[in-house]
């Protein structure tokens, strides 16, 4: 191709270029290492001096013009980029994520709330000895309070001759932790617990609890109320109110049942709270001095509170789940909703 021919073609091609890629192809075609104009420039050295003097400036001039045209066109293309309109109503390309069990997020949320309030998060065994599940919590053998916890017992005896059971509550964590640590501390411990019960829409043989224990020289009843209130307000909403009513658990004194104002109707009364405006949510109290004695703390020096709550109950309230059996069902029609 002669310079003349190049000149005739290249500017037409540049003006017709549709996009940057196209433009780059044109650049390579003429100005690339083996480009048409590059070849002419390379061949100049083989020409006679005269010819060289005639063609040289022309070729170099053309090169500059092409470069400028490319640059202008590039700028034009960038500022006037033109795309084909899309049908935005078409579905997105599916990238499949799984679904976490509703508890996983709930546990995470609860743990975060407590972590922010300076609580340590600890765990313990699900198989437990009679001593930790009952005796050390001031529930001696043959005490009628044991009827409050229907228990699964394990068949085998182990080396330490202790009778083993599936823990009926997370409270044994209190004893394990206190045996190994000195106050002051604040802990929570989530975990699975078991009860020998008939399974129905509101009872299961296996469920989750969260145990909370705070021990310090100055921790008092008003602090206990503050932590409980702060927790439920962060978990549900600032509007939540709490109510303490007398209750009995041998490992606390005074023992209370914690009610929260129904988050669904704000305490006005609805089907969830059976028109009472309140929901029973936790058992709690100030740590019984006998429990401190069991773990070798001086009850004259230390004070504390503890509470235990059922996670299933919270999840059922929070996500409007009517049947406790769904949690352990493995039914993906349930799981995939979360």
């Amino acid at each position, binding site marked *: 191709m002669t310079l003349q021919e190049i000149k005739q073609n290249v500017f037409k091609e540049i003006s017709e270029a549709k996009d940057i890629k196209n433009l780059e192809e044109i650049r390579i075609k003429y100005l690339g290492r083996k480009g048409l104009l590059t070849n002419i420039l390379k061949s100049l050295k083989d020409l006679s001096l005269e010819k060289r003097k005639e063609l040289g400036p022309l070729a170099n001039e053309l090169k500059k013009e092409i470069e400028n045209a490319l640059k202008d066109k590039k700028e034009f293309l960038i500022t006037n980029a033109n795309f084909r309109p899309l049908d935005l109503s078409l579905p997105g390309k599916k990238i499949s994520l799984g679904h976490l069990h509703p508890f996983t997020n709930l546990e995470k949320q609860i743990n975060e709330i407590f972590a922010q309030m300076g609580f340590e998060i600890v765990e313990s065994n699900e198989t437990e000895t009679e001593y930790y599940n009952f005796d050390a919590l001031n529930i001696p053998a043959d005490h009628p309070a044991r009827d409050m916890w229907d228990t699964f017992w394990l068949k085998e005896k182990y080396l330490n001759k202790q009778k083993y059971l*599936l823990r009926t509550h997370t409270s044994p964590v209190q004893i394990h932790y206190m045996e190994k640590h000195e106050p002051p501390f604040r802990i929570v411990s989530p975990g699975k617990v078991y009860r020998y019960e008939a399974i129905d829409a509101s009872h299961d043989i296996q469920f989750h609890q969260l145990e909370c224990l705070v021990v310090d020289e100055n921790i008092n009843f008003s602090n206990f109320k*503050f932590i409980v209130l702060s927790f439920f307000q962060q978990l549900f909403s600032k509007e939540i109110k709490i109510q303490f009513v007398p209750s009995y658990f041998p490992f606390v004194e005074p023992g209370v049942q914690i009610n929260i104002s129904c988050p669904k109707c704000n305490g006005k009364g609805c089907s969830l709270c059976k028109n009472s405006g309140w929901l029973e949510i936790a058992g709690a109290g100030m740590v019984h001095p006998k429990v401190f004695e069991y773990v070798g703390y001086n009850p004259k020096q230390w004070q504390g509170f503890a509470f235990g709550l059922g996670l299933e109950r919270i999840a059922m309230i929070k996500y409007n789940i009517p049947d406790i059996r769904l949690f352990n069902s493995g039914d993906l029609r349930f799981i995939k909703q979360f």
Partner: protein
Amino acid sequence: MKFSYNWLKEYLPKLPAPQKLADELTLKSFEVEKIEKVKNDIVLDINLPPNRFSDSSGHLGLAREISAVLNIPLKLPKFNLIEDKNEKASNFVQIKIQNKNDCLRYSSRVIFDVKIKESPKWLKERLESCGIQSINNVVDATNYIMLLTGQPLHAFDYDKLTGNKIKTIVVRRAKNKEKITTLDEKTFELNPNILLIADLKNPLAIAGIKGGKIAEIDNNTKRIVLEGANFEPALIRKASKQLGFNTDASLRFERALSSILTEEALNYVASLIQKIAGGKILKGIVDIFSQKISKKVLGFNFEKFYHFLGFSIDKKTIENSFKRLGFKIVKKDKDNLFVEIPFQRIDIERFEDLAEEILRLYDYNKAPALPPIGLVKPINISENIIFRNKIKNILHSCGLDEIRTYSFVSKNDLENFGINPQNSVELENPISNDFGFLQPTLLINLIKTVNLNLRFFDEVRIFEIDKTFQKAPVKPLEEWRIAIALANKNKKDDELFFELKGIIESLAEANNCPDIEFLETPIKWFVKNRSAKIEYDNIELGYIGQITPALTHKYSEGFSIVVCELDLEKLLKLSEEEYEFTPLPKYPAVIRDISILVDWDVKLSEILNVIYESEPKILFDVDLFDVYEGKSLPENKKSLSFHLIFQAENHTLTSEEVGKSLEKIISNLKEKFNAEIR
């Protein structure tokens, strides 16, 4: 426990309406579970805590409690006791207690010349409200006084007891295989764990539980012996559990009653019987009271109380509350009160119990909520929890759904999986055979869950993170595991296998152990040649495999399921190792691609070994980028394509160096596998 509203109203003239009463009681004393109309009465069903039976399981005690918490006046009932002046009860009855620890007190009264008949209407109605059937006037009177005072009572027919004039009542343990038939015609075979009331010959009653047929009050009964006793609570509880027999009496005895109650209750019941059945009450109570109780006085320090509460309650209010509860203030000074506890309040043992009394009368809900002071220290979150959440997020991002299932499996499940039930943790009292053992592996419930969901979905991709349980010498061994299962009705099982392998590799890479190995190992649950142990650095992390059709068919129609189970804590340990930086290469890499054709059963791992061994120095990495088996190839052959990446640490490679190396690799591949280079 059922309480009659009308009855309470007799002692509490200012008693509020039932619903209001129930609300107040629930807020300050006991939870009222139900309010029910029974004929002309209202019945409150109250959930009485076990430690309050001694003072509140009778209408009188509950009325006392209500009077205290509502601050309304209490009008006590009057019983007029008229004893015979001449005949002494002790001339007709004597009591022998074999072991003082079994029976803390045994009190008795004797009444002669009673006339057994139907009870008056008012009495029948009271019993009916509280769910007790009317029998006759004497038996009803004992039940009525129990409902009034909380003290169970019993009446024997004096003339049916062995002995002439003086009848001996013995409180003793039953002999082995001794038998008794109770009033409700049930016969029990007893043993020495069970306490009996007997005469010199026959058992008369199972102590604290139920009276026997032998000395039953009948229409011809003229002379009666009344029992008001106090038994060791644990003994009664054990006996009642062993016999599977609960009664109104055992319910009260096993929760512990004050031994002070027997005397008052006997006086009341004697007086009532005389009123409705006539007769003369012999003089005196025959009373064996082996462990007399003394007055209990507790100190109450105001400062300590305020320290416990975090706020203060006016001293006058405190003093007043004690008075309302019937706690006598026997001494006081500037800082302390000394409070005498009524005998029946056996639940009050220490300062904290007094604090509870004051606080509930004050109202828990009037207490302020105050932020705690002190304790600033870094918090610790169980690394296991953090790690589990991390794994869950990774698997969730891999498109898996998280499930949770029971920790239980059945014996049948274990046998299906070829696990010896002897080695698994068994429950003593399972709820049913389906829940007889704790799971030794997560796979059993995982496979069941896959099959459940294949009824609704073509594809199931699930995981569970949970504990497994194994027998161990010292205590049951609990292990956290991760289990994953993939099933897809429309995919080839080969594809599923490699999908799961890929997920495990991603999981390993995200936990700082990228070079995990899959070592083909036969495992009985899995299809032959489709199972592997998963190892890292010679540590066994778990296994992967395709479940055998024989096993899946036990749970479903038998779609292919690929599963893995990993030890969470081992993985956690590995992931804790710190990352270490490797310097970036200084000299450029040279990449050459080769494709080889080999027999279909030649393993990739063998080929890679040959390639790496052929060039130990400058071959930096080998990357398989294509595997092809198919029409355009000869039968039983597959084509594998690799990027070979050459790099040296100390110089730029020349094309001769690389060419030489490549030649060596190719010639070795030809030699070892008869490979054809394409």
